């Protein structure tokens, strides 16, 4: 008698899970296909703001007192850096860009690495670190480029100018990016 009772209870406890299983097995492939395999991140960028005329620097100010106004211009020949409205000159080639392109490798349309002239990212990073050490409060950087420069090159420059890895921690350089109209 006691045995019978126990059996009855166990039969009650076993719920029919088959419909729930069917539902879950359909939902999982559906969600897996719609799920993104990559993680998306964003870069904040702003357009130049039109400021009042009083912000314009008087011409008689000493160069070191002027705002830094760090500007990176990307051209087909390389990177030209401006600081305090002055071009940072390349001592080897005063008329050329500050950091001419160097030989390196880049991805072609099929995703293969090919030899090509690429931007000198390491030198640019060193230069930006020097600027940051000289002006620790400065956070803005203006990036501009020639009309045919590709978007991926601009993002690379933004990555370099935003922060750098200093051992295990990241050091912020110039996180406020302003994109300006193209180089004439």
């Amino acid at each position, binding site marked *: 008698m006691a045995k019978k009772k126990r059996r009855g209870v166990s039969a009650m406890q076993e719920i029919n899970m088959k419909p729930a*299983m069917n539902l879950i097995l359909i939902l999982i492939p559906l969600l897996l296909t719609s799920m993104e395999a990559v993680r*998306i*991140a*964003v870069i904040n960028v*702003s*357009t130049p703001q039109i400021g009042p005329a009083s912000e314009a620097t008087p011409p008689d100010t000493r160069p070191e007192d002027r705002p830094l106004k760090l500007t990176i211009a990307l051209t087909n020949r390389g990177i030209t850096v401006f600081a305090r409205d002055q071009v940072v000159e390349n001592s080897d080639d005063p008329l050329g860009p500050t950091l001419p392109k160097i030989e390196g490798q880049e991805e072609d349309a099929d995703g293969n690495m090919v030899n090509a002239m690429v931007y000198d990212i390491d030198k640019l990073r060193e230069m930006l670190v020097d600027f940051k050490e000289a002006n620790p409060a400065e956070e803005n950087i203006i990036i501009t480029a020639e009309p*045919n420069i590709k*978007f991926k090159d601009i*993002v690379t420059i933004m990555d370099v100018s935003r922060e750098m890895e200093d051992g295990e921690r990241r050091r912020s350089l110039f996180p406020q990016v302003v994109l300006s109209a*193209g180089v004439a």
Partner: protein
Amino acid sequence: MTEERKNYELIPENYEEEMLKRKKASKKSKGKISDSGDVNINSLMDILTILLVFLLKSYATDPINITPTADLELVRSTSLLQPEATVAVTVSKAAIVVDNRPVLVLKDGRVEASQKRGGEDGFFIIPLNRELVDAAERKRRLASVNPSVTFDGVCTIIMDGDTPYRLLTEIMYTAGQAEFQNFKFATISLES
């Protein structure tokens, strides 16, 4: 009484041994198969439920949905900022799309002169501006009835890596005319 005796007589001599064997056999089989012959799916259900919750969670938290195609190869970046739910302008090699509405077709990564105010040298893309003004208006109307929504003039640009800078400036200028001042460039995060 006589029946009982008969039954008793039917019990074989090795009855106890037989019963012990049966008990052992039933103990062994208990863990694997239940009485009715069904497979025990409880542990499988646990795994599937956890997987389902995880998938639903990751599905719900992404405010922008991007499907990379051959025409839209996103750029990789070291940025860690999370995307937000804003007006999204998608620029692939073939077309410009605003919030899943096709706006105009691109030819060799350029907007046709007839679609721009000022012709070839113009920066103002007329159909894109119309769509963005509508999007801003929708957002503003939503903000007027729902205090948790604000129109902050932010626009997410999802752009193919090979897009020329010229097109980017045209899009930013056009968006600026529709009161979008701040932009977020969507990239693939290199950090895991």
